[in-house]
């Protein structure tokens, strides 16, 4: 089935470097490829500094990709875009941000924030239509439409993240990049937001690129998962492929580190260590090896032999 579908987003050999000084360049993302299909949730996990946030921002063109090709809905969005492509990218791809306070302009009213995309892209025919769209959206995300004229600081963290979700989803996007969108929230609020995101996906059939460091949440929400380490995609596959049959030692160590809310198991669990610099693995030499289905792992031929036979 999967092979027949046309991917919604195709990232091929994406590289994103940042020049810090004349001599020093940070290679935040190094040769990363993956695909997202319509309506699915792709989870991107990795620790801080793994380049997961950078990938999200490069895709939505907050950064200029250094090299590689990004195809979205069949259009090349990695190079110079014509007006129509630019518009389509900014309407059909949306982002939900990490910090519910910093991602909402404190001097703007909630209705202005939510309608921002409509205003910039002139999507509403009339003032009345715009207002109706905002009211509908507020109700969808479980906020009181009467509060549309309030300011962000008058809301709690969870409510603010709902506003952020409303702002993205009012554009009817095909892909939503959720960049650590729950990690700044309290546990009980996280669950509310994740439920809301799932509900909205059922309604609108949008795809999510869910970027997080919390593996248990990623496992819960994602259909497919990509594991990032030091700017490289070390392993990607469906949720079950990754969790039931992890190949790469980094993935294994990451899975072993997830704290489980079960004291009897947790107290006994031992953590698998992994140190890239001492392991002798060189990500730059690695190639993508197909394990099965959509499950691929970054390794040299010998490493692949060793890991799969072990």
């Amino acid at each position, binding site marked *: 089935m999967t092979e027949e579908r046309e991917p919604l987003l195709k990232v091929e050999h994406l590289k994103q470097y940042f020049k810090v000084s004349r001599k020093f360049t940070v290679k935040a993302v190094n040769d990363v490829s993956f695909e997202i299909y319509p309506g699915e949730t792709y989870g991107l996990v990795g*620790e*801080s500094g793994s380049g997961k946030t950078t990938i999200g921002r490069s895709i939505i063109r907050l950064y200029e990709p250094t090299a590689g090709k990004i195809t979205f809905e069949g259009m090349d969005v990695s190079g110079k875009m014509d007006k129509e492509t630019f518009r389509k990218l900014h309407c059909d791809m949306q982002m939900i941000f990490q910090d519910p306070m910093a991602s909402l302009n404190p001097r703007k009213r909630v209705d202005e924030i939510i309608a921002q995309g409509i205003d910039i892209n002139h999507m509403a025919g009339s003032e009345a239509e715009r207002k109706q769209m905002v009211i509908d959206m507020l109700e969808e995300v479980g906020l009181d439409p009467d509060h549309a004229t309030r300011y962000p600081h008058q809301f*709690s*963290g*969870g*409510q603010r993240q709902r506003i952020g979700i409303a702002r993205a989803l009012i554009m009817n996007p095909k892909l939503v990049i959720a960049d650590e969108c729950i990690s700044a929230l*309290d*546990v*009980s*609020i*996280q*669950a*509310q937001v*994740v*439920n809301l995101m*799932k*509900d909205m996906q059922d309604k609108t059939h949008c795809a999510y690129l869910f970027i997080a*460091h*919390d*593996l*248990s*949440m990623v*496992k*819960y929400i994602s259909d497919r998962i990509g594991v990032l380490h030091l700017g490289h995609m070390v392993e990607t596959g469906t949720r079950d492929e990754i*969790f039931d049959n992890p190949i790469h030692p980094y993935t294994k*160590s*990451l899975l*072993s*580190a*997830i*704290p*489980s*809310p*079960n*004291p*009897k*198991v*947790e*107290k006994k*669990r031992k*953590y698998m*260590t*992994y140190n890239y610099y001492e392991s002798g693995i060189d990500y730059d030499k690695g190639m993508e090896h197909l394990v099965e289905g959509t499950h691929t792992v970054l390794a040299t031929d010998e490493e692949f032999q060793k890991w799969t036979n072990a």
Partner: protein
Amino acid sequence: MAREKIMEVRDLSISFKTTTGIVNAIRGVDMDLYRGETVAIVGESGSGKSVTAKAMMGILASNSIVNSGTVKFTYNDNGGESKTVDILKMSKNEIRRDINGKHIAMVFQDPMTSLDPTMTIGKQITESMIWHYKTPKAEAEAKALELLELVGITDPEKRMKNYPHQLSGGMRQRVVIAIAMACDPDLLICDEPTTALDVTIQARILELIKDIQVKKNISVIYITHDLGVVAKVADYVDVMYAGKLVEKGTVDEIFYEPRHPYTWGLLSAMPDLDTRDDRLYTIPGSPPTLKNEIKGDAFAPRNKYALNIDTRIDPPMFKMSDTHYAATWLLDDRAPTHDMPPEIKGRIERMLKEENK
């Protein structure tokens, strides 16, 4: 062996004066801690868990008002005899001289903010020993090396001369722990010690704290909202909500036999790796602001199981066992029969099964 109580908090109630009014951050908290044991204080932001810890250390902010309560701390004086003090009655200077760093040490969430960027690691570790015990410099340095080794830092001689910015996040947190351990404290308070760190490093830091605790027989208080951390480290759990304890018990009692609806929500809001339900069980709404007087049970408006009495009278603590208490009217005999939500029931069954595997 008899348990030796080192911290006893009774009826603690603290408010804060803010520009927009008085916030009642803690509203009557009782807590006990015994030597060598680990207590985790769990709650959402604003539940008062950090304020409780700060009260225990005597480092409350200047706009705070202690309405009532005692924080009795028992420690071994220099002479070796045990001494009990009420931290809330001590002056700032006395606390600095006798308690902080010496008998109670704290590890904060962000290692960078608790390290001095202009001082070498070695100096920061030896500083408190020299200040509290007048340890000779050479001896203090020898001990600092020992401590760095204890917290698992390789090449400690070299690291002693490093500045904080030269270390990675996980290393810095190790250094903070070494500093905290410098004076052999009786009590270590860890305020979200791993939230700023990656999962892989998180696990190692927790194991490290545990190892040290066993070696030195100290008590540890964890302040966290991460139930995975609680499951890993805690012996006892105190669940806080809106400035009150709502449930306390051993870690097994809290995870396998929770009685308070808030604990249910907290437990099931975090998916375990086998959660396959379409939706997570959630507590609706968000915690109340503590500016207004709360009538009855503060959790009632968010509680699916709220009883009419909850809107009028705050429930007392009901005692299920010597260690297990919960504050909810559902435990009164007159309460209607009720069942845990199926999500949490399924979860507990799964957890127990997993254990037997």
